[in-house]
């Protein structure tokens, strides 16, 4: 253990905490002060209408944006206390858009995720390649290693991005609309995959997802943060937030809650 790896993260600290967090973009408050805490094994879903600030909030939770008010901590320490590469081994972000401007093979694209695990002069070794191949296999892209990313479909590119995040192997997954471009089968497969990783005993992982589908949120979330687009925030356990009246108000469209096979389903009126 060298000195640089000393105390990170603090033992037993929650994976992610936000304390009295408030965000303002320009003159508009996206969310008023609220706090949250995410423990290992838990999944948090951010819901809200277009432009409500879900992505801004996620980027703030990822430490890529300073909160207007309050503090974000991962592993018990604020981002300022984390060296960038150590933070990158602890939390990973799936960005909403994947630029593929230059030709590159799927395997080399996915191997980019190993960056924080390699030293300044390090090259990816057989072990890193094995991790990348396993990640590709887990998103159903085994055999795509030598394909050019620019020739892939939108859904395949999204799965390459997910595989890149898995190759990064963080403990905290921050996923911005992970279901973009995915068909129904791959949507469920992706959510099942992250649920399996997060629930795995002793792995100490957690996830924060920006989703648009209320019913998938109801199926996978432990906690929900609902932004109403006017600065209001409802944060809490799934069943406390997923109420027809709150959702109808936030999304500006009446919703009806239906119980089906022990699960709550929300249908637009």
């Amino acid at each position, binding site marked *: 253990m060298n000195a640089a790896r000393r105390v990170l993260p603090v033992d037993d600290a929650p994976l992610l905490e936000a304390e009295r967090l408030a965000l303002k973009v320009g003159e508009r408050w996206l969310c008023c002060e609220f706090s949250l805490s995410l423990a290992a094994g838990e999944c948090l879903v951010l819901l809200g209408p277009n432009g409500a600030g879900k992505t801004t909030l996620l980027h703030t939770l990822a430490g890529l944006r300073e909160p207007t008010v309050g503090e974000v901590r991962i592993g018990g320490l604020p981002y300022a206390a984390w060296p960038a590469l150590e933070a990158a081994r602890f*939390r990973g972000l799936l960005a909403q*858009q994947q630029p593929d401007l230059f030709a590159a*093979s799927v395997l*080399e694209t996915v191997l*980019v995720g190993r*960056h924080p695990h390699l030293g*300044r002069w390090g090259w990816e070794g057989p072990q890193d*390649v094995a991790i990348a191949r396993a990640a590709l296999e887990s998103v159903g892209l085994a055999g795509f290693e030598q394909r050019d990313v620019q020739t892939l479909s939108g859904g395949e590119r999204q799965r390459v991005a997910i595989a*890149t995040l898995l190759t990064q192997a963080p403990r905290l997954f*921050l996923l911005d609309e992970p279901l973009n471009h995915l068909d129904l089968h791959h949507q469920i497969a992706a959510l099942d995959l992250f649920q399996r990783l997060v629930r795995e005993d002793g792995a100490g992982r957690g996830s924060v997802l920006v989703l648009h589908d209320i019913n998938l949120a109801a199926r996978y979330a432990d906690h929900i943060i609902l932004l109403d687009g006017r600065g209001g925030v409802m944060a809490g356990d799934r069943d406390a937030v997923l109420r027809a009246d709150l959702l109808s108000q936030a999304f500006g469209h009446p919703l009806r809650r239906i119980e089906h096979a022990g699960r709550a389903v929300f249908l637009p009126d």
Partner: protein
Amino acid sequence: MRCRRSPPAIAAVLLSAAAVALLWALVAGDLPVGATDVVAALVGGDGMGATVIRELRLPRALAAFACGGLLATAGALMQVLLRNPLADPYILGISGGAAVGALGAMVLGAAMFWVDVSAFAGALAAMLLVFGLAHGDGSWTQTRLLLTGVIVAAGCGAAVSLMLALAPDTRVMSMLFWMMGDASAASRPWPALAVLALALVAVMPFARDLNVLARGELTARALGVRVGHLRVALYVLASLLTATAVTLVGSVGFVGLVVPHLVRLALGNDQRVLIPAAALAGGTLLTLADTAARTVMAPQQLPVGVLTALIGVPVFLFLLSRSPRGTP
């Protein structure tokens, strides 16, 4: 990132090509020389052939090599910085600033030394102007940087045209040669070679960061890359490389845009391979082009910039048409 061929093999091929190109540059020309003259020149021997090689051909060949390497490296860095495959070293107005400086000095009839000083100062002024304007409000988007650079380059272009129109006829020819790129007057290649070597040493530890940056700014920051610092460093480095090259041989076109693409088509987009390979390939291409420029129509000397385009365009189109990867 994995390369399709092993880095040592690539290095061996490119180094051999560079050696062949330099050797050809030493033996080609009006005065026939043999291998003994080349050896004599390199070890400091006497004789007509050795002197011609040591005093004329070697400095010129090394200058061309250094400039090709500088431009190709700068082009590769600019393409990563701007995340734009069409970026070249001149896109942000560096060469425009250098041209304004150099041609301004030529109009005034300054000596060659002051033309060089003025060209370098012009390039630095353009670099600072573009950086200051694009960075003005603290944000730094590729689009803003690109637009600022393109506008500054356009302004420099207008100033250059104005000077060409107003200059006395006797000086217009040398001004045009400067614009097209001309290595005939380059006699001091060592500073440029040193800049190239230092730049490669400085960039290689960060080459994997550049791979990550190509995945987008957000993803790069989430992967622990200090994107803000990296982009400023990239900008300054690419600008300095361009300024050095342009000061030495003028605005040789094409090398900085096409060599990175040729290397990318052949070897993939891993910057750890791409950047040093582009430096070697760019140097080799410009050495070949410059040797051709002074021999094919001897004693008439052609501007080397014309030759780089004449060699590079068909090669590039050929590689593009047979590329399995589809796009560069």
